């Protein structure tokens, strides 16, 4: 019976273009868009040209360090013009006397302005100060107990799991919609009239979506790894186990939505809001690492955050094992049990 239910739900899904798009295509679009918007780690794309005009010929500014190239400008005003029109992110004007002028839009977003301002300031200081050979003063290292991260972290390390979790949890809406539509159409009555135990009718409705959810995550992570160069630093077994826990949790959340959500229309209007807020709190759209502490701990009330913490470890930290993901997997299973218990408590067969 469960095999027939899986077949039926897969057939239904294959005929439902909208649902297919939202399960498979939409997350890919999000991954790509966010993946090309955010930059993490040393890979910052092509170096940016910085227009420089120097009124002090004795001062040579050949290099501005990693990420920038020097672009000689004919005049100080040419530098200011290039920045004012937005052609260049920043420029340098070195007057014959007095301080060097860093031309930059001070109203620009701090995320863009800050790093540029810092890097150029340092470059100018290096160029102006006499070169003194110095030993390395500082070297960044992860503390013991935290596995070594990958050497280069591309944005897809973050946007693939972020969107996989966000859209993976949308499975719960599909589950709830299925219950509601089977009730409305009367196919649920047929199921109850058949010689099938009621628990099996319930499981038979949930299991197909567990399977579909697994296919969805396999597709998204597969595409991330093969298509977008997302690396898996830790154990693949751990990644699979974590993903199974995510799908289980989403399926159980679907049961809860089905029990309290009402009709298809009601579910269709409330579930997306709930899921988006959960995704936002959980760091699916904006990484929790960058959130203030309060938001970081608030995120723990939704399963998404636990899932993403786990994914970050297994994708970015080398040598992450199944045991290292125990807190994430445990939390997800805990949420799943909670959702299932609440869902079963409120579920009405008739």
């Amino acid at each position, binding site marked *: *019976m469960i*095999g*027939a*239910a899986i*077949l*039926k739900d897969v*057939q*239904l899904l294959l*005929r*439902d273009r909208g649902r297919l798009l939202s399960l498979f295509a939409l997350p890919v679009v999000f991954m790509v868009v966010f993946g090309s918007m955010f930059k993490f780690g040393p890979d910052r794309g092509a170096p940016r040209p910085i227009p420089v005009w120097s009124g002090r010929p004795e001062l040579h500014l050949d290099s501005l360090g990693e990420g920038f190239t020097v672009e000689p400008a004919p005049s100080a005003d040419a530098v200011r013009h290039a920045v004012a029109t937005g052609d260049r992110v920043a420029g340098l004007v070195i007057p014959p006397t007095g301080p060097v002028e860093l031309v930059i839009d001070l109203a620009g977003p701090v995320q863009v302005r800050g790093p540029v301002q810092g890097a150029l300031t340092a470059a100018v200081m290096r160029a102006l100060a006499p070169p003194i050979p110095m030993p390395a003063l500082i070297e960044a290292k992860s503390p013991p107990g935290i596995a070594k991260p990958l050497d280069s972290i591309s944005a897809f390390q973050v946007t693939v799991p972020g969107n996989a979790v966000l859209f993976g949890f949308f499975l719960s809406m599909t589950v709830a919609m299925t219950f509601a539509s089977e009730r*409305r*159409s*009367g*196919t649920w*009555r*047929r*199921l*109850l*009239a*058949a*010689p*099938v*135990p009621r628990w099996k009718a319930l499981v038979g409705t949930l299991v197909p979506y567990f399977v579909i959810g697994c296919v969805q995550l396999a597709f998204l992570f597969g595409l991330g790894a093969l298509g977008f160069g997302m690396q898996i630093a830790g154990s693949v077994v751990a990644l699979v186990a974590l993903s199974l826990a995510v799908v289980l949790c989403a399926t159980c959340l679907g049961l809860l939505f089905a029990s309290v959500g009402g009709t298809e229309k009601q579910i269709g209007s409330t579930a997306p809001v709930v899921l988006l807020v959960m995704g936002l709190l959980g760091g699916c759209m904006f990484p929790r690492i960058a959130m203030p502490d309060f938001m970081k701990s608030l995120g723990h009330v939704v399963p998404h955050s636990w899932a993403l913490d786990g994914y970050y470890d297994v994708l970015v930290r080398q040598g992450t094992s199944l045991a290292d993901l125990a807190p994430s997997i445990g939390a997800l299973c805990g949420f799943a049990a909670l959702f299932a218990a609440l869902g079963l408590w409120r579920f009405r067969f*008739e």
Partner: protein
Amino acid sequence: MLTLRGLGKDYGERTAVKAVDLDVVRGEILGLLGPNGAGKTTTISMACGVVTPTRGSVAIGGVALASEPFAAKAKLGLVPQDLAVFEELSALQNLRYFGALYRTRDVEWALDVVGLRDRATEPVKNFSGGMKRRLNIAAGLVHRPELLVLDEPTVGVDPQSRNHIFETVKALHAQGMTVIYTSHYMEEVEALCDRVAIMDHGAIVALGTIGELIAKHAGQGVELELAGNAEAGAAAAVAHGATRDGALLRFPAGAPLGAALAAIEAAGATVARIESRQANLETAFLALTGRALRDTE
């Protein structure tokens, strides 16, 4: 074939079905008639194990539903009032799924019975209303049940498809299937059913063959419409045994019509129309429930 004993259902304060006793004989077609909200669907749902009764018991083919639900349910096929099929799937895919619920793989028979074999692989959403209804019936037939329960199978169906469904039910009956047929259409029940149960306000108010019900509850009579001083005429007629419904007067068969007519004329009224009243299930139903079968129309 189906035995209901004291079967009832409460939804909170509201009693949908009081306490129904009913024996459906093997091989018969039993009609279940009743106005909207009479409790037909609720009764059927309890008989099929879809709704848990508040009180009473159900046995299907001698097997108690409460103690052996799977054995009992396997004998019964339900055709719900709503179109309970997956519109995006084909007829074949639908029947395979519903067949699997009964561990049946052979769905060809059901397709043939409803005459949908040549459209079997098309998505159901392309079907006409009548074809969807036929598939709805086929989905209740896949496991060749001993007892088929049809809840208003012809709602919203064109006359041609309705005839098709009719013939299907007759053919199944001829093969020995027991059928419970719920309908809003008196003609259907009269044409199809051996016995009729009339439900109203959650109770069966009459049960018998159509002949018995008519003889008992729908005596022949005469219907009059008055003109002139209709008020006074009607009062005089009521004194002579008529029942009154506005300007319409009804006399039961055997009423002293001559004396009544004289009294009506003496009161200053004239007879605008006179008609002999047909005794049929419709009048029996009206007599029993005080309501027409359909709210609308």
